[in-house]
């Protein structure tokens, strides 16, 4: 945790305070990052160097943990579960967008009567704990041979993310100035033209933010995936939990697995930090 903070000493009075607060921010940032750094570092250690007390920070690096994770020693390949996760996340995100964008249009640009009530209905479904609907969904899936089927997860993740997406997209579409819409309509622009020239450019950042959030939440989901999938459609988080029960040293392997599974979210989130904020605040922050 030794991060030298270059400080400009030209302004003598306030500079100490500024430097102190900057240093405090650095220390806190590093403290929050330590577990992540530890996870990545351990993933590159050999099993015998990973579980040591005190920790061997400077131990030689190896990719054995990753090799083990991808199945050279255990036999179970993580690829099917990674692809299942990818399919469920991307598939549900696409369906969410297909449903949420028109709905948001009907809640902002040409709002239906009592549109605020509709908005609150959407949000209220998000406040019911998903576990309360789990049993009927399980029974339904069992009786219709939908158990262990990625499409079931796609549908459930769609319903899980749809309220968030509708709220976000509405707040973005509400930014479309009505005056422009009216002027375009008077000038005889058709609906398609209005969509293409006015709405889509304003909605695009919103669609990007919505997709990012929906992807992350679907990728992370574990409760439904755990109960409703088995061998065929197991997702990455479920695979990860099954990974630990094996006996013997496993810390480096688990850290490698955790790193790989978090990687898509980390990359997407880091690359689009502003979109992340927009999405997490349901579009309230732009």
């Amino acid at each position: 945790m030794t991060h030298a903070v270059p400080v400009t000493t030209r302004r003598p009075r306030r500079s100490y305070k500024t430097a102190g607060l900057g240093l405090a921010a650095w220390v806190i940032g590093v403290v929050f990052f330590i577990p992540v750094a530890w996870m990545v570092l351990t993933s590159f250690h050999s099993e015998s160097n990973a579980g040591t007390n005190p920790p061997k920070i400077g131990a030689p690096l190896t990719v054995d943990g990753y090799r083990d994770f991808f199945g050279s020693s255990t036999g179970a390949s993580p690829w099917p579960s990674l692809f299942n996760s990818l399919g469920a996340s991307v598939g549900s995100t696409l369906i969410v967008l297909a449903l949420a964008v028109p709905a948001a249009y009907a809640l902002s640009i040409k709002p239906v009567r009592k549109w605020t009530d509709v908005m609150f209905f959407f949000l209220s479904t998000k406040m019911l704990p998903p576990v309360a609907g789990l049993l009927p969904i399980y029974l339904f899936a069992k009786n219709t041979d939908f158990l262990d089927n990625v499409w079931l997860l796609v549908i459930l993740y769609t319903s899980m993310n749809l309220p968030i997406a509708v709220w976000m997209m509405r707040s973005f579409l509400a930014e479309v100035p009505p005056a422009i819409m009216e002027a375009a309509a008077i000038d005889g622009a058709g609906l398609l033209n209005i969509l293409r020239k006015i709405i889509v450019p304003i909605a695009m950042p919103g669609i990007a933010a919505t997709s990012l959030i929906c992807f992350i939440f679907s990728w992370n989901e574990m409760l439904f995936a755990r109960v409703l999938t088995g061998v065929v459609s197991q997702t990455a988080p479920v695979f990860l939990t099954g990974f630990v029960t094996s006996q013997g040293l496993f810390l480096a392997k688990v850290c490698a697995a955790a790193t790989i599974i978090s990687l898509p979210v980390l990359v997407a989130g880091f690359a689009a930090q502003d979109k992340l904020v927009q999405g997490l605040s349901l579009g309230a922050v732009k």
Partner: protein
Amino acid sequence: MTASALTTTPPRSTATRRPAISPRRAGWIRRAPLMPALIFLIIVTQLPFIATLVISFLRWNALDPGDRGWAGFANYKEVFTDSRLRESVITTIVLTVSVVLISLALGLGIALLLDRKFFGRGLVRTLMIAPFLIVPVAAALLFKHGIYNPVYGLFNGTLTGIWHTFGSQNPPQPDILTIHPKIAVEAELIWQWTPFMMLILLAGLQSRDGEVMEAAHVDGAGNWQMFRYITLPHMRRYLELSALLGTIFIIANFDSVFTITSGGLGTANLPYTIYETFYASHDYGLASAQGVVVVVGSLIIATFALRVVSSLFEEEVGR
């Protein structure tokens, strides 16, 4: 956008009027784009709850398929007399309130630090976001094995390292997961959710009106006065928003409890307890009754929460 109250007519009026379309049909044309999303959500989220309600009145244990029938309120009686469930209600409340409040306070503090200019601010912000971007199950596993484990976890490892540095051979090696299981779960959740709070609050801070701040500064307002009379009132909606969203996610948390303690040692919250009744005990009737009780409780909380959102919403609509 024209300022309009929430309950009045839609804020926009179409300029073009085509008298050929009857108002009734026009209403349906407006509603059409909304319908797929609405119908989908009603089917996928509301129908299961109705089924849960029905099953909650049945005597139905999957391990005993012959004995299935009407149970009346027997399941509910069990729910309200079962001390395990009462405990998990309290656990859920303690877990949610402590995690939301602590990560909110930490998030606000860190957001205030990050709102200032200093060397490497963007990098610190990136470091801070990382915990939120770790897949929750992975984060829980990392904390359980990589940090809390009494033998090879980082926490005790660091203690050993520090003690050895000062020449002591008997460093304390607490087994956090056994001594403070709740705090262990809470700490992991706070670590994940503080960045979330920080992100929303930082965006709130950065949306303060610079001119107002400047004017207050020129008029001689001190740091504390600026914070108390400008920043805090401005931040109210962001604090409420992040608290509400945090609550929605943490109240339903399953991953951390399941992974770190498997619900043991008094850490079983409601989602975990219901999961166990259904998945381990196979008591479908009881699990459903528990689910119904949780839904009713959530609805009560949600009514308050929605009032908060609706006040935020009015501000936004009136903007």
